[in-house]
């Protein structure tokens, strides 16, 4: 693989990472589990972004729910970056973890026998 190709690859991975991280609700990108998900290039790596010939895969930690809307926004942001550079790849997303300041919103549930509605709050 030629050096310009590696440089382009690194630049694309960095641009994808920046776009994904900038989406509100994304806590951060992550390498995931025991086998780190990252784009490696001479002198560095972009953690949380994996490029291959078919797709760009972004591994992220979500900072908000519901996830469907967040995923759609991240996918759109990454697709815009790919469109800018004329790269035609699918965008795959992996939500590796949730980092919620407060667990999902409060729900009201009734516990029989208490005689009143119990307020359930997230921590």
């Amino acid at each position: 693989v030629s050096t310009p190709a590696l440089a382009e690859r690194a630049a694309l991975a960095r641009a994808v990472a920046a776009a994904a991280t900038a989406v509100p609700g994304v806590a951060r990108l992550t390498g995931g589990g025991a086998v780190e998900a990252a784009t490696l290039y001479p002198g560095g790596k972009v953690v949380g972004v994996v490029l291959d010939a078919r797709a760009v895969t972004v591994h992220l930690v979500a900072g908000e729910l519901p996830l469907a809307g967040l995923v759609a926004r991240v996918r759109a942001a990454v697709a815009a970056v790919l469109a800018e550079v004329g790269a035609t790849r699918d965008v795959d997303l992996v939500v590796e973890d949730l980092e919620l300041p407060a667990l999902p919103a409060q729900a009201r549930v009734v516990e029989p026998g208490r005689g009143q509605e119990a307020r359930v709050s997230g921590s």
Partner: protein
Amino acid sequence: VRAFNRVLSVLFGLTLLAGGLLVVVEVVTGLVDAPWPLAVDQWADSLQQSRFSDTAAKTGFLVAAAVGLVLLVAEARPWPKRSLALTSDGQRSWWLNRRSAERHLGRLIRSGTSATAAKVRLKARPRRWAVRVAATAAPKARPGIEARTREFLARLGAPDGSSVRVRIARRRRVD
């Protein structure tokens, strides 16, 4: 499982490497007529004199068979998938780390209901999830736990019709 497979691969590779190096050393020492660093002839004699009924031989076979059986079962059994596939509005799939979802749901149940402990297992079946919650709580907490679970699943984007089963273990009374 991926990490387990990697450890096995490393051990297997190291064993092959050690065996290969041993053969190389033995061949080289044989070519230069030097005394062999490892007395292979003694090993061969010892092995030839061994009988199947010897305790050492039987122990060795049993241990090897047991290890092989454990590895076979570990590799062949259907381990839970690391990630759960999701789709929204007919769009392309995305994936959610299963353990993370289980951990957060357990925390949510512990913090939002009267349950003092909750263990959650998520399984991805075709077109729906199967959620199993084992909670330590009073029986009357069951509807609350189920409601919290369903609410969380909806926020994750779990498929409609996912099944939720709550198993309650009563708290021990301390007098």
